[in-house]
């Protein structure tokens, strides 16, 4: 059985995780939109947005990586037994 304080910590982590996952999904949808819009414009002979879109997409990916690293860091924190 999971002790009470640890369970509370798990639930806290799960909430944080859900928020981060939703944000992650939102950023990916934004990236898909950027990619398709860039491709469509390039095929129509208007490639001006290619570089700004690539920069924005890289920034989204960097935020996602940062969140993932943050999650692993939270997981590695030792249980204090206080239950958050």
């Amino acid at each position, binding site marked *: *059985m*999971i002790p009470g304080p640890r*369970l509370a910590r*798990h*639930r806290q*982590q*799960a909430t944080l*995780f859900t928020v*981060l*996952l939703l944000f*992650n*999904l939102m*950023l*990916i949808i934004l*990236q*898909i939109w*950027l*990619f398709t819009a*860039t*491709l469509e414009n*390039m095929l*129509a*002979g*208007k*490639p*001006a947005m*290619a*570089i700004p*879109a*690539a920069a924005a*997409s*890289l920034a*989204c*990916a960097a935020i*996602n*990586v940062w*969140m*993932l690293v943050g*999650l692993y860091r939270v*997981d590695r924190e030792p249980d204090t037994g206080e239950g958050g």
Partner: protein
Amino acid sequence: MEQKLRDDFPIDWEEDHYVSRREFFKFMTLASGGLAVGSAALAAWHQLRPHERLFEPARIAAIDDVPVGGSIGFTYPRPHDICILIQPEPGQFIAYSRRCTHLSCPVEYQPEKGWLYCPCHNGAFSAADGSVIQGPPPHALPKVLLEVRGDEIYAVGVRHEGAA
């Protein structure tokens, strides 16, 4: 029996769900990285691809064959690539692909307006640089690169001006 099994092999469902969602997060981050690389590759491809291609030189006409303020048609580089050579000012020769960049209707030179006009959907391109003046064409006409050798005009390549 079932209770004993649970006691002997306890499963931390919270932990189990958390780990699989974390794996999903990792996968989505990987997908995010892939999309970023794809977008960067598109931008790089746009920057690095050649906008100008040289082909086998082909004679178009003698200088005297092209009337000032007039035009003549030719094909380059392939037999079905229709092009138009114009002489807006004496001694100034410019050639473009004749296919409208909208739906490939052939454009015609109108010297009084200084444009190449597409009658299909009222598109017009500047005679000076091939850029779009009006109508639905999405980008400029490809320009045919010319060389004057003696008193003859040769086509030597094609430049796509659609790039920013």
